[in-house]
Structure formats: C-alpha cells, structure tokens
C-alpha cells in the first residue's frame, strides 16, 4: 500500500507542471479538499468558542451572583495552547498554529473579566448573560454545526463520493468560505464594540432586538453568513447533478450525498426569507422604520417616536420560515454520516436505501410547511394551529423511518466497534430522545405549558448536541484517515466518546425535568427567584458540572488530533474497507486538484457488503469494481 501512495504522488506531480505558490495552495486555494479543511478548522474553533460561552453561563446558572473562577478558564485554555505549541514546535507550523485558537479563546475570556459591563468583580451581569446566550446559540448553529456539516464534510466528501475532480464552481467555493469567515469574525467582533454583543437570543425577536444594543453587528454578520450559505448551496446542487462519475446513477449515490443534496435545497430556498427579515430589522434599527414596531410603543415609561403600524410577528414568520428548515440542515448531514458509518461497520448494505431517499425528499419538502409550530402561543388561532400540528406530526414519520432503518441495518450484522461506530451507535438513541421529546412541542396544548421553558432547550439540544455533534464527531473519526492519511488513536477516541456521551446526558436530561416544572429558559439565575423552580433548582449544579465534564473530555479529542498529525502512522488508502468511491478509488489524502489518478467508473450501488457479486459473496465490493463475465459452473 505504501508503494501505492508513492505511485499516486508521482502521477500527481506529472499532472501538475505548474507549482502553486504557498498562498494559493493553502490559503486562497480553490481545491475543494483544502476549502473543506479550512471550513472544518474554522467551524471547530467556533464550536469551541460557542461551548466556552456556554460554560461561562453555566457558572451563573449554578452559582448565581457568586464570583466565578474565571482564571481556571483562562489558564486552562492557555495551557492547551502551550501544549499544542509544544507538540508542533517550529518544525510543524500546521500544528503549532492551532495553538493560537486556544490562546485566542483564553484572551476572549480574559477580556470579559476586564470589562465592567461583563464580569465586574468576578460576578456575571444579567445583561452579559443574555449576550452570552445569544452568541452561544448563533455561533453554535450558524458558525459551528452548519459550516462543519455542510461546509467541511460536504465540501470534502461529496465530490469524492460522486467521483468528481472538484466542485462545479471552485472559485465560488473559495468565495463562500471567505464570506463565511468575514461573517464569523464580524460576529465575534461585536463583543468588543460599545454596547457589547447581541442580547436577544439566537431568535432575535423584535421589538426587544430592535431596541437592545449590539444587534446591528449581529445582523450585518448574519447577512454575510447567509450569502455564503446561498453560494455554497448552489455549488453543492450543481456538483451533484452535473459531476457524477460515469455509472453513478441517482439510486447508486451514497446516502451522505443525498443528504447534502437535499440540505443544499433547504439552504437555497429558506435562507432568503431570513435575509429579508434581517434587512428589515437592520432598517428598523438604523433608519427608524417600523417594520416590526407597533404603534404607541412605550419603552422605559416613554412613548417611542416611530411611525408604528408594523408587526412583531412578521419577524417570527420570516425567521422561522428559515429556522425550521435550518433544523433539518443541522440534522440531515448528520443522518448521512451515521448511515455511511453504520453500513460500513455492520458490513451489510443499508437496509431500505430507497425508503431512506424518499423519506429524505419528503422531509425536505415538508420542512417548509411546519414552521409555525414555533409560534403556537402567538394567538394564531386554533384552525391555523391545527394545520401546523398536523404537518408536524406527518414530518415525524420520515424521521422515524430513518431511525428504524438504522436499527434494521444493525440486525444480524457483525458489528465492528470502531470509534466512529461508537459515536454512530450512540447517535441512534440520542436522536431518538431528541425526536420524541419534540412531539409534545409539536402539539399546541402541551406546547402552551412547555413553551419557553428548559424543556424546549433540552429537546433541541438532544437533537443538535448528542444528535448532530455526536454524528459530526463520528464523521471526523471516520474521514480523518482520508484527509490526512493517518488514523486517530482508538484509546483516546474511546475516552472522548464516553466522556462526551455521559456529559451530554448529564446536561440535557435534567433540562427536560426542569422544563416540565416550568422553569423559564432565559433566567440568568436559573430560576432562583421563583417558588415553583425551587424543587428542581439543585439540578442546575448537576448540569453545570456535566457541561464542564464535556469540556474536560474534549481535551482527549484535541490532543488526539494534534498527536496523530505529528506521530500517527500512515494507514492504507481504504482503512475501513469501505465501498464508496472516496475510499476505494482515491489515495489518502486524495490528489490535489483532481482527486483521482484515473477517472472512476461506477458499476454497483453504494453499500455492497457481503452480497453476491460476480457469482460469489464478497466481503465488500467497491462501487468502482467492474462486473466480471459470469463463469460457467464447475
């Protein structure tokens, strides 16, 4: 196999006579693999930032109005940075530079402690708690999970899986990354502006969001992020339609490609609504229009001098028209990753591939018809509510099909408990909890009780944290050998897996209990001031320790990545013995600018594990393995 790699390198050099400069090769690259990795690194940095904001919030929730041990955060991140510098040294700048991410986050927390409006004398101000909450949500959703699931995995894996040399529009691809980065940096900058960061939650409901400081930068940053997603979505769809290799019919596409394809449609068609909403809100703030402001509004005892006549509900319509499909943007790529890993590690074809594909198309379409179930308590009227309850119940059917298919695929398989498989297996019950806890929220009567409580937080965190993020971790462990040629350490991976899984349940499980007791989701003291919250108040401490435990176990993940980059041994091109093209037809890592040494041709469906091929049962038959003429029986 080592010889094989050497051979590919030779071919790569032959193909490329002109050597690209360092900047064009690593920074302003148009190669989808480099862009994918750029997206991945940026998104992971944002995920860690978003997580840190939440870890700070959890202090205020567990020990309200007490001075916090912020120095632990600062020194912890500084030590991590130094460790990464030491692992990399001068010889390996691609590792050492990673240290700046940790130093940067340490700096951010240190900056918070120096500001009178944030953590004066060590205690957290309620306004700053609101800022952290808004930024945690925004960063996690728009700058963390979506760029990692779509920008990183989609960019890196999709062209490889369909046998394409690159994305259809490589320069547009580069533009989407850089626009996204500008949006992300602007979003973080808002902490340093007078008035601080946005304080109105990631949902930014007016009129509060129109009158609170900090929101303007949020809106400008969001317009960048939205534009980037739109450009990316066009690229994904065109690539999937146009650049499939010869023989790669629609029903032979790996399921991951299907999820990215449908996700791109959701991004393409849902994001413009939020773009309009953001423009309106920006104009309300900057030009004094009244799109969202009703007549005769009184703020702080004074009548606001505006024309009025607007509707705060208009924002909710525009926002949720995006944000409900967005939920599927968060989860569909995760389902794709899990499907890949589960079939690969059970050594069986994906049970019910076609049912999965049709469910996926159906869920994509239906996701545009359910958004008002976020607005049951706005007084929309019971007839409208009935419609949205019905569509919401219908959309849960394809989700159940996904889960059922995964379980049936496990049935009778000889399961390999590799690290990505552990994450994928954990995803099944975790996403199950996330989905089932959503049903009461989709029905108006229980939603009236549960709305805006911690139950909602618990529900959607079960979907996106042990749901999406666990699947994304699985994807990182699964495709890391493809990206670098080196496999992540199993032991550290298992430590990371168990710590994360247990920690996540410790955080999000109690939230469901608190929510049913009626604790509101937006209290900086975790409900201390309310009588009805007293019996469940002790859970705040549990949850906070759960969150910090998750943080500590991520150290295993981070060290694993950097140590593997430094010391990991080269593994074979197809280390998981997978059937899809990125493993069977391309070297690890694939050839720069072109991916494959020979253009692959596809002869079979995506997951032919232990099925009769050419008259005999093969352990696995890659998609590009040609048919042989059937030999006569002996």
């Amino acid at each position, binding site marked *: 196999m080592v010889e094989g790699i050497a051979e590919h390198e030779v071919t790569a050099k032959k*193909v490329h006579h002109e050597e690209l400069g360092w900047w064009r090769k690593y920074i302003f690259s148009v190669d989808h693999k480099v862009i994918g990795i750029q997206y991945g690194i940026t998104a992971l940095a944002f995920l860690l930032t978003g997580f840190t904001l939440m870890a700070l919030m959890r202090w205020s929730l567990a020990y309200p109005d007490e001075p916090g041990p912020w120095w632990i955060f600062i020194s912890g991140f500084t030590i991590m940075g130094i460790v990464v510098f030491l692992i990399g040294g001068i010889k390996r700048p691609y590792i050492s530079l990673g240290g700046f991410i940790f130093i940067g986050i340490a700096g951010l927390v240190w900056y918070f402690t120096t500001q009178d409006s944030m953590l004066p004398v060590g205690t957290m101000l309620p306004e700053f708690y609101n800022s952290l909450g808004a930024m945690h949500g925004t960063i996690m959703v728009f700058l963390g999970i979506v760029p990692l699931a779509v920008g990183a995995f989609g960019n890196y894996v999709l062209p490889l899986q369909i046998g394409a*040399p*690159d*994305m*259809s*529009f*490589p320069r547009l691809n580069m533009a989407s990354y850089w626009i996204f980065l500008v949006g992300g940096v602007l979003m973080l900058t808002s902490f340093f502006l007078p008035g601080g960061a946005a304080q109105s939650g990631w949902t930014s409901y007016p009129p509060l969001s129109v009158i609170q400081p900090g929101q303007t930068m949020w809106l400008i940053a969001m317009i960048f992020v939205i534009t980037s997603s*739109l450009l990316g*979505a*066009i*690229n994904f*769809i*065109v690539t999937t*339609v*146009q*650049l499939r290799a010869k023989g790669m019919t629609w029903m032979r596409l790996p399921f991951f490609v299907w999820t990215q394809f449908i996700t791109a449609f959701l991004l*393409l*068609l*849902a*994001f*413009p*609504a939020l*773009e*309009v*909403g953001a*423009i*309106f809100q920006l*104009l309300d703030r900057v*030009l*004094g*229009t*009244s*799109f969202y402001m009703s*007549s005769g509004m009184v703020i702080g005892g004074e009548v606001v001098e*505006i*024309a009025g*006549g*607007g*509707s705060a509900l*208009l924002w909710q*319509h*525009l926002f949720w*028209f995006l944000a409900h499909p967005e939920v599927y943007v968060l989860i569909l790529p995760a389902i794709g990753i899990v499907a890949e890993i589960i079939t690969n590690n059970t050594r069986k074809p994906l049970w019910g591939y076609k049912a999965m594909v049709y469910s996926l198309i159906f869920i994509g379409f239906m996701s545009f018809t359910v958004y008002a179930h976020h607005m049951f308590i706005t007084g929309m009227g019971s007839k409208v509510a009935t419609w949205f309850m019905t569509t919401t119940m219908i959309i849960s059917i394809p989700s159940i099909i996904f889960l059922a298919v995964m379980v049936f695929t496990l049935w009778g398989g000889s399961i390999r408990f590799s690290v990505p498989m552990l994450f994928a297996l954990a995803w099944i019950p975790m996403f199950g909890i996330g989905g089932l806890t959503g049903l009461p929220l989709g029905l108006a009567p229980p939603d009236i009780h549960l709305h805006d409580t911690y139950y909602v937080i618990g529900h959607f965190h079960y979907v996106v944290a042990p749901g999406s993020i666990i699947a994304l971790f699985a994807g990182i462990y699964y495709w890391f050998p493809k990206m670098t040629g080196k496999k992540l350490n199993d032991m550290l991976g298992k430590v990371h897996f168990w710590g994360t899984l247990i920690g996540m349940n410790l955080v999000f499980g109690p939230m469901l209990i608190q929510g049913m007791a009626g604790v509101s989701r937006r209290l900086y003291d975790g409900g201390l001031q309310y009588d009805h919250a007293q019996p469940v108040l002790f859970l705040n401490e549990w949850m906070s320790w759960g969150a910090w435990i998750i943080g500590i176990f991520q150290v295993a993940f981070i060290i694993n990545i950097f140590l593997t980059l430094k010391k990991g041994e080269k593994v074979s091109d197809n280390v998981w013995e997978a059937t899809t093209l990125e493993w069977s037809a391309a070297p690890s890592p694939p050839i720069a*600018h*072109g991916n494959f040494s020979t253009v692959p041709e596809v002869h079979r469906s995506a997951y032919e594990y232990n099925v009769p091929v050419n008259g005999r049962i093969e352990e696995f038959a890659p998609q590009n393995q040609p048919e042989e003429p059937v030999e006569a029986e002996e």
Partner: protein
Amino acid sequence: MEIPYTVDIREDTGLTSPKLGIWLFLASEVMLFGALFSSYILLRVGSTAWPVQSEEVNVLIGTVNTMVLIASSVTMVMAWASLKMNNFENFRVYLASTIFLALVFLIIKVFWEYIPKLQHGHDPSTNNFYALYFTMTGLHALHILGGIIVNAYFLIPGAKMWKSNPEQFTNRIEIAGLYWHFVDLVWIFLFPTIYLL
C-alpha cells in the same frame, strides 16, 4: 485541471453547469422577493391606515421606467442573439444599449423619485408604505446595479474571451441575460404592487 461540463452539455441532464447554477440562484432570488412581497401583503392587510399609493408615487415616471426596463430586456436578448449569429460588432452595440438603458432607469429612479421624495420629507421612517417602497425598489435597484457591473465586465475586459473561447463567452452572455430578464420580471411585479394597487 478542467472541470467538466462548464461549456459542454452533459448528456443525461441536458445542461451546462453554469446554466443550472444561474437557475438555482434565480430560485433563491424568487424566495427573496417572495418574502418581500409576502411581508408587503402582511403589513398592508394588518394596517389601520394605508395611503392611496398612486397619490404618493409618480405613476408616469414608474411607467416610463417600466418601458425602459422592457426595452433593455430586448437589447439584452439581441446581444446574445448577435453572438449566436457570430456578429460581435452588433453584440457590442446591443450590450452597450442594455447598460445605457439600465443607467437611464437608475438615474430616473434616483433623481426623479428618491431625491424629490426625501426633499418632501418622505423617508423610510415616515410610514410603512414608504419603508416598503424604499426597501423593495431599493433592493431591486441594487440588483440593477449588479447587472450593470456584470454587463460592463462582459462589454470591455471580459470580451477578450470571444477570441479564445467564443462558445463559453456566448454562454456567459446567455446567463447574464437570464439574470437580467429576472430583474426585469421582478420590476413587472413591483410596478403594479407599488404604483397601481
């Protein structure tokens, strides 16, 4: 490395990639303007008082501008047709006319509509009609501006491609044309909504 199907048509889909790309982009634009029009409806039906629109805006100027934009659509399609007929000189004349008409549209818009309205104290904060008027026509004007920039690029620096790769250049003009017709089409909806209804 060449990306396939940038110029050639893929047999089983019947498309070149850029053409599919622009149609998808236009689909997302439909959603953008769709959201704007929906917001207009929601705010208008929910309002207690809405001005008589034709008394607030200048219908004559709006009509003139509609004519100007439709004319620019004609010259745009003629520019593409000229390339198809291998007549580069005509192409330059038609594309230049398209840009000229677009500039006329913007100049009329700014000097005969926006500036007089602002001088009379009618700005976006006056009421929600003016807010929507400025936002919707303003976003449309930004799209016109974008079209002018793209067309100007193809008129002067981008036209070099005609020598090296005439087929791809013709495709590019077709795609610029698709965008341009879409921007026109948006105006065809904006004009009655804002000026007449």
